[in-house]
């Protein structure tokens, strides 16, 4: 079964959000960021107003700045470590294609790696996680408009011909800034009890809480 998904393979990055978000997070004013990027303050102002898009070279620099806020390793080493990680992690593209999953995630949903990587999320899961994906797309997650999201979902997997596996999952969702430039969705989750599920849902006021970049 193939589900038609609205977004194209890659969504255009919303540069005003990305640039201003980075600048304000780093506590820089426009001219300080301009110095870092070796451009004029007027240029930064035009990018933030959406009057012009930064060049490819600047785009890569900005994505590297984002990358370095959480990682000091190369993206290749990061992927390798992610696949080996015992906790539940998954990397999803704007198209819904699952690019990489951790060993812990495979254990959590009792699935083999080749049954999930390079498959589309709506083909593997049903219910809450698919709705979460649609919410993130609609919130501009893959365009760089979202800083993070928190969710509690009931994980339902269509496990071949067998019955679906249900479990409660508490997840944190962050953008990962990859060359392309491309924003990927990093799911970091853990199985939780029904009590924790209820508590978190009450705290965040629903199944998902999206925190915007600006």
């Amino acid at each position, binding site marked *: 079964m193939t589900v038609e998904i609205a977004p194209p393979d890659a969504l255009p990055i919303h540069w005003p959000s990305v640039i201003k978000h980075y600048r304000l997070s780093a506590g820089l004013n426009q001219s300080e960021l301009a110095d870092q990027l070796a451009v004029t303050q007027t240029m930064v102002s035009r990018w933030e107003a959406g009057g012009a898009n930064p060049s490819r070279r600047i785009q890569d620099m900005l994505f590297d700045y984002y990358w370095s806020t959480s990682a000091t390793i190369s993206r290749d080493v990061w992927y390798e470590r992610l696949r080996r990680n015992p906790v539940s992690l998954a990397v999803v593209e704007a198209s819904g294609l699952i690019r990489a999953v951790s060993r812990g995630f495979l254990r959590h949903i009792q699935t083999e790696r080749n049954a999930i990587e390079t498959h589309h999320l709506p083909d593997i899961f049903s219910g809450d996680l698919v709705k979460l994906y649609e919410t993130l797309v609609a919130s501009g997650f893959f365009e760089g408009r979202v800083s993070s999201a928190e969710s509690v979902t009931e994980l339902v997997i269509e496990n071949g011909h067998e019955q679906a596996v249900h479990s409660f999952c508490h997840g*944190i969702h962050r953008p990962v800034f990859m060359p392309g430039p491309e924003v990927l969705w990093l799911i970091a989750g853990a199985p939780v009890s029904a009590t924790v599920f209820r508590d978190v849902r009450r705290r965040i006021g629903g199944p998902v809480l999206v925190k915007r970049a600006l």
Partner: protein
Amino acid sequence: MTEGARRPKALNGLSWGGLLRHYRFTNRMKQTALAEDLGVTQAMVSRWERDKVVPGRAMQVRILDLVNRKDLSEPVVSWRQEIAEAPFIAAVIGPDGEIETVSPGLLREIGCGQSDLRGKRLDEAFEGELPSLYSKLCDEGLFDERVETVESAEVYSFRRATGGLKDFPVHTLSWWRRGEDGRPRWILNGARIRPLELRALREEFGGQIRIVSETQGLLGG
């Protein structure tokens, strides 16, 4: 039936146009600014506001998101903040064995509070295999930035304040990164496993730990 009654309602009895206008006026925004936030043209916002067109389903989600949670924006979070928010077992340990940051996932697993772990030495809060993992990592050179990633399987034994131990088997992945002061920190991620899985992992590793990789591929430290 009047034309107004046929308009789909968005929120609080307002049509989509009414909701957008209300949001825009209370935030003193121009149509162009709102269009910018929604990633559409100013002409589109104008058509929506006059209820000539109803926003598509995906856009309705984005609009409600914007209207309901307009104050919910967040700066880029640091690597340490990411660990402090992790739903799974995660911690940052200093070179002297001090527990600096713990995740809600770890607190949940143990059933304790921040103050039971933070600022304590690892061997004060735990006994047995977790402190012994720390010694092994020291010996292998994790804090000298020699090994990059280490996989392990052990039983975490938390010393309860009331006496006795809280034991649970964990599959752990460890690596280092430099802290704010430039000194290396041990980062651990873990997932609770069943005792059978612990045995299987130890067979796979040929002991408690397996060194996955030596330090390589750094982006300038």
